[in-house]
């Protein structure tokens, strides 16, 4: 398959604008469709590798991808343009939806529906965690680490700024000693 980088900053901007504009129910599938299938800016393998990196980095996955790809193609200007393109429309829509919702939020039925939607969103996270965690289930140290980190964050409610560096240090040591 022939792939070529975006021709201009405008091209880059509209591409990421299209990702943000259509991303109902999740950004990743639309990012794939736009970047790989429609605009053909990158190959499937390249996409997978880039997203893989961005999932390990802190911050929003696709937001990071917009920075990494924008930089690769147009340097600093590209990173800024891609990021703004990605965020512009969803930012306006999410605020508009929230303002619209706020007019009805005192209505108990509406609040019940929205709380249900939010809780289902929490369920999506749990499902994602299970999917990502499955390949780790065979490694005893990974399971212990996941359990310990979960207890610290979700049950004991220790500050994340403390838990993450400590767990990360332990995990790095374990990975270096081939326990992960």
């Amino acid at each position, binding site marked *: 398959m022939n792939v070529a980088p975006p021709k201009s900053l405008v091209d880059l901007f509209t591409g990421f604008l299209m990702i943000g504009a259509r991303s109902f129910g999740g950004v990743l599938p639309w990012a794939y469709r736009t970047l790989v299938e429609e605009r053909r800016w990158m190959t499937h393998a390249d996409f997978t590798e880039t997203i893989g990196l961005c999932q390990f980095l802190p911050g*929003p996955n696709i937001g*990071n991808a917009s920075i990494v790809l924008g930089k690769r193609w147009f340097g600093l200007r590209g990173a800024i343009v891609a990021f703004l393109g990605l965020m512009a429309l969803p930012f306006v829509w999410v605020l508009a939806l929230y303002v619209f919702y706020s007019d009805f939020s005192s209505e108990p039925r509406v609040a019940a529906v929205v709380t*249900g939607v939010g809780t289902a969103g929490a*369920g999506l996270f749990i499902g994602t965690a299970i999917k990502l965690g499955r390949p780790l289930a065979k490694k005893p140290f990974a399971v212990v680490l996941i359990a310990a980190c979960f207890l610290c964050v979700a049950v004991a409610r220790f500050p994340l700024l403390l838990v993450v560096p400590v767990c990360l240090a332990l995990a790095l040591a374990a990975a270096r000693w081939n326990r992960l």
Partner: protein
Amino acid sequence: MKLVELGLYFALLSLVSVGGLPSVMPEMQRFVVDLKGWLTPGEFIQAFAVGQAAPGPNVLIASLIGWKVGGLAGAFVALGAMCFPAAVIAWWVSDLWDRFKDSPWRLAVQRAIAPIVVAMILSGGVVLATPGRPDWRLWLIAGATAAATLASKLNPLWFLAAGGVLGAVLL
């Protein structure tokens, strides 16, 4: 002053948000609801719900929290604070990542972060499903949704809609 505080705290969270926004949802809730009282637990889950149902990266939930705290300026501050430090890291690491393609350290880092990402996203889900005291109805909705996403590949919007229906019936 509130906005400065919000911005600085979210910027710190941005640095530890491996796995994206889900990872830092428990900490955001702890900070803006429990510690500062800027939002009630109900308002927090509802802002989260609107952010999930709207299109776009779910980091935009941060901008809704910012909006609640300080209007439009708050929305910009919260979103910028959540994205900028992480963007600087992404900018910087993407070069290193290619350069260290065959280094054992790169592999070690990848393997080390994986379990932490899993634990943090799991924590995010459980904390969001437990906004106040444990409530079996919320756990049922979250558990059913998690099971459904594992069993099918439908667009997650369908599961959010089903959650809304369950919410109307149960809550």
